[in-house]
């Protein structure tokens, strides 16, 4: 079976005054109808990997790979016009903070309808019905009212649910969730995750869940990629995360405080220059 998404040796680089900055240096993975977690520190290339898949790395940034294919057909450096037809329709993305990722001067309804109509070409009334249906699907009690609300009139958690509704309306096959709960309250976080999980399962989608929260990813995902300095250092099933073999992953795990095993001092993450270029541990 061809995977939904297959990425081999993805590289993203930006020319800077002091030479080429390589944000992503040879990332390979495959995504099926599963929840794939991508974990790493900030600057490890998680976000850029997501943007590169969507073709959203703006010049002068450069994207290069041996292979990047969506259901078997190559999407590497497609012309912008063809990439636009994939974006939103087949691959979509939810970003970190709905306060910034929703357009402040447009009503929620218009923002949902806009993307949906673009890819389906349905009438205004049909798109409206779909938007209300999607708002209901993310458990918004009064979709009619929220449809006419502006983003500043809803809370963060509701904003993120709106974002999910908007991005899932055109029925994409893959959703990239880039730190979708980092800007939310802990109490709201689980709610949003549950909705996201249910919708992704129901639709049989592939989910790339980018996060820096190891525990969250361990609970929520099927498989985890650990990234360091633009590379995947380890790949393993989420349930085996505690048995990680790579010293970087172990270091990350050891630097988390645990209620059941209190320690005098938390371990400090030690980084080694050798990790930058060593081949990844585990399944790959």
């Amino acid at each position, binding site marked *: 079976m061809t995977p939904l998404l297959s990425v081999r040796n993805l590289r993203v680089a930006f020319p800077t005054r002091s030479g080429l900055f390589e944000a992503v240096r040879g990332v390979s993975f495959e995504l099926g109808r599963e929840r794939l977690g991508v974990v790493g520190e900030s600057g490890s290339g998680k976000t850029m990997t997501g943007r590169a898949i969507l073709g959203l790395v703006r010049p002068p940034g450069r994207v290069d790979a041996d292979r990047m294919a969506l259901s078997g057909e190559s999407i590497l450096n497609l012309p912008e016009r063809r990439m636009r037809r994939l974006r939103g329709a087949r691959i979509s993305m939810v970003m970190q903070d709905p306060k910034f990722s929703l357009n402040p001067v447009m009503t929620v309804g218009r923002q949902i309808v*806009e993307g949906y109509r673009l890819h389906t070409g349905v009438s205004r009334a049909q798109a409206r019905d779909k938007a209300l249906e999607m708002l209901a699907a993310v458990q918004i009690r009064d979709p009619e009212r929220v449809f006419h609300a502006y983003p500043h009139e809803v*809370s963060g958690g509701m904003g993120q649910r709106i974002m999910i509704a908007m991005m899932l309306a055109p029925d994409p096959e893959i959703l990239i969730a880039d730190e979708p709960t980092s800007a939310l309250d802990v109490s709201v976080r689980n*709610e949003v995750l549950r909705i996201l999980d249910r919708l992704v399962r129901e639709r049989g989608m592939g989910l790339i869940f980018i996060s820096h929260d190891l525990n969250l990813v361990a609970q929520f995902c099927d498989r985890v990629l650990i990234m360091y300095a633009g590379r995947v250092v380890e790949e393993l099933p989420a349930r085996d995360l505690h048995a990680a073999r790579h010293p970087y992953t172990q270091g990350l795990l050891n630097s988390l405080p645990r209620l059941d095993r209190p320690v005098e001092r938390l371990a400090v993450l030690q980084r080694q220059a050798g990790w930058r270029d060593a081949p990844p541990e585990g399944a790959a």
Partner: protein
Amino acid sequence: MVQPDMLDQPGRDGPPPAAGAPSGRAMRLGRRFAGVALSLVLTLLGLLLVTFVIGRIMPIDPVLKVVGERATQAQYDAAYQAMGLDKPIWQQFLRYMAEVLRGDFGRSISTGHAVAQDLRRVFPATLELATLGTMIGVLVGVPLGVVAAARRGGWIDQVARVVALVGYSMPIFWLGLMGLLLFYGILGWVGGPGRQGIVYDGMVPTVTGLILVDSLVAGDWAAFRDAFSHIVLPAGLLGYFSLAYISRMTRSFMLEQLSAEYVVTARVKGLSERRVIWGHAFRNILVPLVTVIALSFGSLLEGSVLTEIVFSWPGIGQYITKALLAGDMNAVLGGTVVVGTCFVALNLLSDILYRLLDPRAT
């Protein structure tokens, strides 16, 4: 601003649908505009106070200006009393306010007419020029700034930069003279100095004082063409200057918005670049853009003295400058009140526009 009833609890997503909202909204709007109107009145009062004080502390004796150098002491005293200068200062201010509200700014010494009458003549000339200039500045400057931001570093951006730089740095009187020399003197494409050719002077009945409008009202196409050929060069010059400013400001506003997250969202949705720029980012710069345009329009309404002098344009800038040089305080203060009122009105207008353009404005 999160309302407490919208806290994130599924099943309690918010207050019951605000069915009675329209009347509540109307009330809120009404109260808001009442507040704006109050601040408007206070601002105008402040403006009058300032012009009044300036009129009193200027080392120019208003009585002497009226009675002349050779008046006797008795004549001087009579005029002094007639002008109310013997009264307490607050009474003088009340009298001044009453006069201004009646549209009475006194008599201008240099023209011999009532200042109000002079202003009715010179202000429309400036208004016409400033409006046309601002229209050019907006219609060219805004798209230029948006495109320059969208293609940052591209050739359009470079051209826009040079155009704006030249606009900033060229002295306007020089450009004006060169323009007259080339387009009027050599090519004969446009009319010469002044608002109208000598043949058409006073031929169109005055309705608004804007000759372009008046000639259209009268249905006089020849007069319209003539007035247009006279205004096109000075308006083009002023337009070029406001274009330089507006395009640079538009560009920087757009750059800020284009790096915002919601722009990424719009791109993720698969929108075309045109819709991302004009449908999403551009709508978010409208509020600051309105301020910039209003300020630029206001500064043109002050009258661009150099342009008016080069083009013999009988506008308010020239009028006030001449009056100031002649120590004609009535004319100066009258003109100042008119210009100040324009600024206040423009502020009010942009305030109203903010509220229409930005749903977050309260």
